[in-house]
């Protein structure tokens, strides 16, 4: 796995030297072997150091890394059984959202999320993870099914946003997102959302009204993609990195703002370095959180979910002058 992000250049150089030595295999001399060990150690230390001090914009790049595990990778690595459910029963099957019934440690759950696609063929099929109305409606169908059979819902969020195409408008992308936002607060089963990569705008929120929201260490969650935000704010998407810094989009930012419950640590060098290790950590976090949520009586769970959102917002109050505020 290459080190191909710009801030990883020192790592790429170390890695190149390591690979040069490794190619020699058995022909390594004793001092070269020591050098290799030292270089490997250096690589790990430098990785730790660089990844421990990422800027917000660098985190955007990690969250978008082409080797980062996607929803389907986690489903494969976490679930011991899985049946994919397809189609919204109204119009089509949106591959940008995939999921179904699954078993985690013998427990049946509904698991679903955005799929960005690894190679070009899959990316095209999945619309790069940009949700269509059918994806929202398919997810809603699954969530209602989960409610009927008292299965918890786990959603993985990884999208830049909902698809802005003409057909999406024609088939009601706004209505589809809105409907999920209205149903999820009242869904009579625990909902756990995990931002695994990028959470962007309404296309993310439509799958993220939950009892708890967890974020992977290098995941980001934002009101609009940094590019879109920059073009809205400064009419130029080239200022995306600036928007990313200003909007407080990282897991630590959002934990501090009280908008998420927990940060799930990633392997050294990011989730893309070690899918298996990442999946194991994630699985443990999922099981722990579900166990806690399932202990709550349903009315308490729903009230807490409602209050979780009801209390979001930052504002102040100022005294109102008598007589003002009336229209006459």
């Amino acid at each position, binding site marked *: 796995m290459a080190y191909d992000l710009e801030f990883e250049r020192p790592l790429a150089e170390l890695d190149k030297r390591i690979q040069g030595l490794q190619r020699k295999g058995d022909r390594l001399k004793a001092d070269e072997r020591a050098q290799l060990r030292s270089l490997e150690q250096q690589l790990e230390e430098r990785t730790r150091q660089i990844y421990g001090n990422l800027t917000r914009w660098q985190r955007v790049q990690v969250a978008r890394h082409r080797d980062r595990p996607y929803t389907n990778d986690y489903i494969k690595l976490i679930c011991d059984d899985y049946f994919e459910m397809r189609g919204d029963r109204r119009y089509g099957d949106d591959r940008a959202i995939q999921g179904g019934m699954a078993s985690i440690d013998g427990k049946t759950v509904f698991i679903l999320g955005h799929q960005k696609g690894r190679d070009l063929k899959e990316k095209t099929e999945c619309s790069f993870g940009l949700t269509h109305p059918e994806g929202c409606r398919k997810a809603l169908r699954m969530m209602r099914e989960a409610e009927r059979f008292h299965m918890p819902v786990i959603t993985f969020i990884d999208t830049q946003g909902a698809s802005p195409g003409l057909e999406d*408008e*024609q088939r009601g992308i706004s209505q589809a997102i809105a409907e999920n*936002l209205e149903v999820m607060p009242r869904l009579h089963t625990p909902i756990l959302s995990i931002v695994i990569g990028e959470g962007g705008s*309404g296309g993310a929120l439509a799958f993220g009204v939950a009892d708890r929201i967890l974020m992977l260490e290098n995941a980001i969650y934002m009101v609009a993609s940094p590019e879109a935000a920059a073009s*809205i704010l400064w009419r130029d998407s080239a200022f995306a990195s600036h928007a990313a810094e200003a909007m407080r989009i990282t897991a630590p930012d959002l934990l501090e703002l009280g908008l998420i419950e927990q940060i799930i640590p990633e392997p050294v060098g990011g989730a893309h370095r070690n899918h298996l290790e990442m999946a194991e950590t994630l699985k443990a976090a999922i099981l722990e959180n579900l166990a806690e949520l399932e202990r709550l009586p349903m009315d308490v769970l729903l009230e807490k979910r409602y209050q979780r959102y009801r209390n979001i917002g*930052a*504002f102040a109050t100022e*005294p109102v002058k008598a007589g*003002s505020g009336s*229209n006459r």
Partner: protein
Amino acid sequence: MKDESQPALPVNSQNGNHPETIPSVAVSARALPDNLAVKCPNCRELLVGKDWEKNNHVCPRCGHHFRLSAEQRIELLLDEGTFEELAADLIPTDPLEFVSRSQSYRAKLEDEQAKSGLKESVVAGTGKIEGLPLALAIMDFRFIGGSMGSVAGEKITRAIEKGLEDHIPVLIVSASGGARMQEGLLSLMQMAKISAALARLSEAGVPYISLLTDPTTGGVMASFASLGDVILAEPGALIGFSGPRVVEQFMHQRLPKDTNTSEFVLAHGMIDAIVHRRMLRATLAKLLRLYHNAGRSAVIG
């Protein structure tokens, strides 16, 4: 210097840009001498200010609906003197300490407050239409493009809660480019907060009427604006998830002229009716009456 006074989504209705006429709509009409004449941005007709005002700020020639301020909207819709404002004391803060490339968010808020005379993009309250009570929230596009931050979300939620508490119908008049960037994810979460409150309203059997005006896009359209028991729109308004320019860039093609307008969403089954401004009050009154009399037996009384 670039400015941030634009709405959260690029807004460019089918009527073209709204040039110098917008400020004169925005500022309280009576006081301004330049309201003697107004140019219609759609048909370019020069309108006599007084006639235009009497015509509810609709161009008598082409029917173009100018944007209304929250105050003008209240005047248009409610029985005179019935409006009582809710949550008037809420003011925005700068929770992210937003680092801007140009003007700071705090300075921007002050500017916008001075310019519009509003504290935020939403005015909430209660009132009556033809004697029937309702709770309402009205978005004002003049204030940072009607964008929705924490205060807007809170005021709209309080209007819904008032409807729930008093068991009176709720009306939300949307005019917004969507979520406000400067409050980051807090803005996005207002969509969830308001929608959750609407879910409770719906469960309690209290009607909610959504009125879409120019423009209603982004996170506002993708949440409460699309959740009405009845959804109405003014003619010719820009309505959609994405602005037409965003869609065009994404599709790499020119779009039909009426894409993402009131007429477009009506044709695609997303709303119930397009209502001319002169018929709005009567239409709302009719709906309120119909809901008010629901469940009453015509025979027994």
